[in-house]
C-alpha cells in the first residue's frame, strides 16, 4: 500500500488539529477561497464527460495535465457557484496531489473525504466528494498504465 502523498498527509494533520466542527468548517471555507477554475488553455466549456466527477451535484470536473517528470497537475471546474465544499476539496487535492508520485495518488482512498469533512455529510454530498477523489486516483492509474 503506497503511503499518502506528503502534502496530503500534512494537510490532513492540519485539518485533524481543528478543535471543533466550527473551526474545521472555517478552515475548509478558507480552502474553498483558494479554489481557482481550470485555465482556459487547459480546458474550456463545454467540458467532456470523461472529466466529470461522477455523482457530483455541483457539476465538478477534474482535468489532469501531464508534467515533464511523469506526474500530474490537477485542475478543476466547479460549475455550481454554491458548491463550496467541492471547491474546498478541489483546492485541497489540487495542492496536495499535483506533482505527487502517481503510485501514491492512485492509492488515495475516497475515504479521505471523511477525514477532511467529518462524517456529517449527506449521502449525495459524500458521493460527489468521494467521486472527485476516485476520479483523480483513476487518472493516476491510467497514467501509470500508459507508462507500463
Amino acid at each position, binding site marked *: 500500500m503506497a503511503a499518502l502523498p506528503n502534502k496530503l498527509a500534512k494537510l490532513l494533520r492540519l485539518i485533524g488539529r481543528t478543535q471543533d466542527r*466550527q473551526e474545521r*468548517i*472555517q478552515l*475548509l*471555507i478558507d480552502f*474553498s477561497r483558494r479554489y481557482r477554475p481550470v485555465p482556459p488553455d487547459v480546458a474550456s466549456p463545454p467540458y467532456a464527460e470523461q472529466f466529470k466527477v*461522477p*455523482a457530483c*451535484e455541483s457539476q465538478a470536473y477534474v482535468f489532469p495535465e501531464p508534467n515533464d517528470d511523469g506526474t500530474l497537475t490537477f485542475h478543476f471546474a466547479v460549475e455550481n*457557484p*454554491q*458548491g*463550496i*465544499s467541492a471547491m*474546498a476539496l478541489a483546492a485541497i487535492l489540487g495542492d496536495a496531489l499535483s506533482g505527487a508520485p502517481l503510485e501514491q495518488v492512485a492509492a488515495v482512498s*475516497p475515504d479521505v473525504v471523511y477525514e477532511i*469533512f467529518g462524517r*456529517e*455529510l*449527506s*449521502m*449525495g*454530498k459524500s*458521493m460527489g466528494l*468521494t*467521486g472527485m477523489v*476516485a*476520479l483523480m486516483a*483513476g487518472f493516476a492509474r491510467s497514467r501509470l498504465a500508459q507508462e507500463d
Partner: protein
Amino acid sequence: MSDIADRGYANPEVLVSTDWVAAHLDDPAIRIVESNEDPLLYSSGHMPGAVEVDWTRDLNHPLRRDYLERDGFETLMRRIGVTSDTTVVFYGDKTNWWATYAFWVFQLFGHDRAKVMDGGRLKWEREGRPLTTDVPTYPAAAYRAPDRDDTRIRVFRDEVLAHVRANLPLVDVRSPEEFSGERLHMPAYPNEGALRGGHIPGAANVPWARAVNAEDGTFKLAAQLRAIYQDEVGLRRDDDVIAYCRIGERSSHTWFVLTHLLGFPRVRNYDGSWTEWGNLVNVPIEK
C-alpha cells in the same frame, strides 16, 4: 417571475419572495432558517438574522435512522428561538431542496406557521442581497411540541407495499439514470446505497427539479406544474400519492409542490426511499 399570488397556487401563502423576506429581516415574529446540503455554506455567509438547521445534526435521530422526537424538536426550537407563534421561513441551496426537507420535518410536529422563500439561497445571492457571517443568537423560547405525527405526510415500507399492490400512484423524483437502475451498473459510480437498482413498480419518474425554473430556481406556475404532474403523469388531485427518492430529501420538494402548490390533499413522503426499498428482501422492483 410573476407575483406569487398570481401564479395559481393552491396555498400561495406558504411561499414568500425574496422581497418579502428582505422586508421581514428584523421582524421578531419571523425566524429565517437556512437549511443546506453543503455543510460549509451557512458559515461562509447567510442572510442577516438567519439561523442554521442542519439535516444531519439537527433533524436526525442521534442513533436510529429516523427523525428527532418531540424532546429533540423542542430543544431545537428553543435553540433557534422559535415559539409556537413564530413563523419560520426556510431557504437553502439546491433551489430549496433541503429547505423543503426541513419544512417537511417541521410539519411532522405540526409547526404549520412555516413558509419557503421562492428561489432559495441562489436567488437571494444573485440579487445582490446582504449576507453576513455573524451568527445570531435568540433568547431560548418556550416551545411545547406534540408527539411526532408519522401518519399524515410520512409513509413506511409496509404501507408502500400495500400502496403498490393497490395500484395507487407513486412519484419517483430521482434522475432517469437512478430510476432505470442504470447508475448502479456503471462501474465508475459509487453505489447508491442500495443492492438493487430500478424503481418501485408503478412509479412515474418526475425528477424533482422539473418543478422549478432553471434560470432562477423559483417554482413554476401552477399551470405548468399541472401540465407535468396531472396532464403528463396522470395524477389526479384527489389521488393518494407517495413520493420517494433516495433518502426522502428530494421527494420532500415534490411533496411540497403537490401538497402546497397544487393542493393535493393526500401526499406522503416515503423517506425510507430507495436506500430502503433497494435493499429489502423480496419486494417487487421494476426496471
